[in-house]
């Protein structure tokens, strides 16, 4: 075990795979000479050269599609899209091509590619640069979508994504890049498609992914200290496939749940989580499932407005308390 930042963990995984497998290569805007907008790829151009670390023009659709085509010929491209907002320009190549080629041709052509891209708001980047649209990919059969919340998972899930023979979107997060944690020294991938209980507890289940899964852990600790509430935290890790069983099993134990997410509430990822819990734990649930999510507005630049619109630990704590109140009223 070594303490690494989330950024370093991603970097380590890329470097490991570049060394291990000649067919792995990276492409994206500013990943080489500029060392990556968020420096995940720093140093890799020097070490592996421009063939393995390819700077691209600003052409998200073109280079993402080129990665799909290269993957069809057996290479394992790892695309960096600078932020998930810009992935919307490549959506046709991802949804209509990367995710379809395997099925549409009856299983003849594989698309072993990875798209790495950060989500996240909170940096005053305004309405078009602060969106969390992982939903667009998690919704699509044929895609796999993972969303690590700590350095260990960042490394292990990126390793898994690169070794997987399907298109995998790895959702990173601007606010997590500098967070630190223990990372195993070995290169074991984590299983795509499984959630993880990151804290066991008995009173309430918090379900989250990516940044909010990290927030959920803090919230649980604060609740334990201030309110003596023992929360269980489920980190989804994989948005597609979605590990419903782990979520439902937790709520069947705790009998109530709050879902935390950084995207908009209506139709957001949390909608599926709440619907799943309400269905699978119907007879166990003692209060409605609450969702804490972004306010449904084009995110403003001005700091006070942005802060008000983004979900916080305090919002989550309020939701937990209200949920436990509701449980108490009903018991």
């Amino acid at each position, binding site marked *: 075990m070594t303490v690494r930042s989330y950024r370093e963990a991603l970097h380590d995984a890329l470097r490991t795979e570049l060394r291990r497998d000649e067919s792995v290569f990276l492409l994206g805007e500013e990943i080489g000479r500029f060392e990556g907008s968020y420096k995940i790829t720093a140093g890799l151009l020097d070490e592996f050269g421009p063939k393995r670390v390819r700077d691209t*023009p600003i052409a998200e659709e073109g280079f993402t*599609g080129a990665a*799909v085509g290269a993957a069809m010929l057996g290479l394992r491209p790892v695309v960096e899209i600078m932020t998930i907002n810009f992935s919307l320009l490549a959506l*046709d190549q991802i949804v209509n091509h990367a995710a379809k*080629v395997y099925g*549409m041709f*009856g299983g*003849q052509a594989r698309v072993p590619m990875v798209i790495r891209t950060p989500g996240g708001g909170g940096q005053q980047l305004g309405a078009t640069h602060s969106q969390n649209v992982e939903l667009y990919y998690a919704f699509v059969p044929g895609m796999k979508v993972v969303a690590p919340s700590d350095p260990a998972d960042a490394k292990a899930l990126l390793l898994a994504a690169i070794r997987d023979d399907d298109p995998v979107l790895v959702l990173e997060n601007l606010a997590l890049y500098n967070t630190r944690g223990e990372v195993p020294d070995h290169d074991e991938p984590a299983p795509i498609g499984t959630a993880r209980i990151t804290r066991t507890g008995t009173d309430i289940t918090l379900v989250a992914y990516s940044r909010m899964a990290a927030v959920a852990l803090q919230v649980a600790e604060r609740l334990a200290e201030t309110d003596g509430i023992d929360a269980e935290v489920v980190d989804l890790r994989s948005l597609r496939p979605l590990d419903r069983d782990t979520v439902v099993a937790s709520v069947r134990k705790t009998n109530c749940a709050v879902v935390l997410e950084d995207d908009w509430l209506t139709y957001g990822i949390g909608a599926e989580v709440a619907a799943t819990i309400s269905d699978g734990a119907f007879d166990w649930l003692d209060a409605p499932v609450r969702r804490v999510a972004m306010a449904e507005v084009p995110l403003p630049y001005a700091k006070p407005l942005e802060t008000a619109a983004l979900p916080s630990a305090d919002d989550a704590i309020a939701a937990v308390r209200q949920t436990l109140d509701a449980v108490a009223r009903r018991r």
Partner: protein
Amino acid sequence: MPTSTSAPRRRRRPPTNPAADDAQLLAFYRQMVLVRRFEERAARAYTEARIGGYCHLNLGEEATVAGLAAALDPTDYLFATYREHGYALARGIAPERVMAELYGRTDGVSGGWGGSMHMFDADTRFMGGYGIVGGQVPLATGAALAIEYRGGGEAVVCLLGDGTTNIGAFHESLNLAALWHLPIVYVIVNNGLGMGTTVEQASAEPELHRRAAAYRMDSARVDGNDPTAVYDAVRTALAGARAGRPYLLETVSGRLKGHSVVDPAKYRSRAEAAALAAADPVAAYAVRLHGAGLLTDELIAEIDADATATVAAAADFAEHSPHPDVSTLFDHTYATPVPNDARRLPGEPLFPVPANGVPA
């Protein structure tokens, strides 16, 4: 199938005699007739409701199909559009399997999953028909990148329609290919129309091959009704591509019928339609070979009968090929199995109630 002209990367045959020989000239004709008869049969099967979805035919494009396919090496890769039956045949896929795909059967070239628009065959490096206009262009560019990455001598040919030159993916892809010196030839099959819209109504530069200038790319326009002209042009283009100079080739031919089988093409005047029929490339090429002494009336009849028989056999094969079983519905969502994949029919619950009726 003749191999392409030489290129710095891999010499196959001397570059001095690029023209097609007599055998090739006749082979073009056989190929063109097969495509013609196949497409006519497909149209019939569609009206008989044996084929579903959209169905776009290569009627009028036969000379381009024949000349282009012959110019490729067997190891080259071909990316097509949804209008690809002829190219699939000419690439060497058995007509039975192409027809079975149209019928949506298990013996179809895509196992019945793709239909008319989405044929794929790894063996012949036929890299797929694609239904999203322009969608194949970045993919083909990426395939060329993979070739370059591995240092192979193969090349990619990417088909696209005239209307497709106006979409963003075309621009982004050609720039990447030229910037990275990829071994790819983009072939604009200019049939004068995108559905009902003419080239002049859609493209501010209607001489489409000239758009290559925006990427300092070589380009040419060629008569798509002449298989030898297409053959030569593709060979030249491929030679450049293999040497790291991607190429934009425009072939000009007509679309004899509507955009797809169901389109009556009312937007076209009687005169236009008549002119097209009069310039039918299959008939014109027959006259030419006849004049050159390569075709006789008997041979014409024989080739026609062969093609008709091949196509009839293909339809018969397709008719008797089994439909895919519903139990295979979840077989092709993922290549690497992972836990918790959703394998659920529409009527099935997320959380089934156990036999005893009590939730677990």
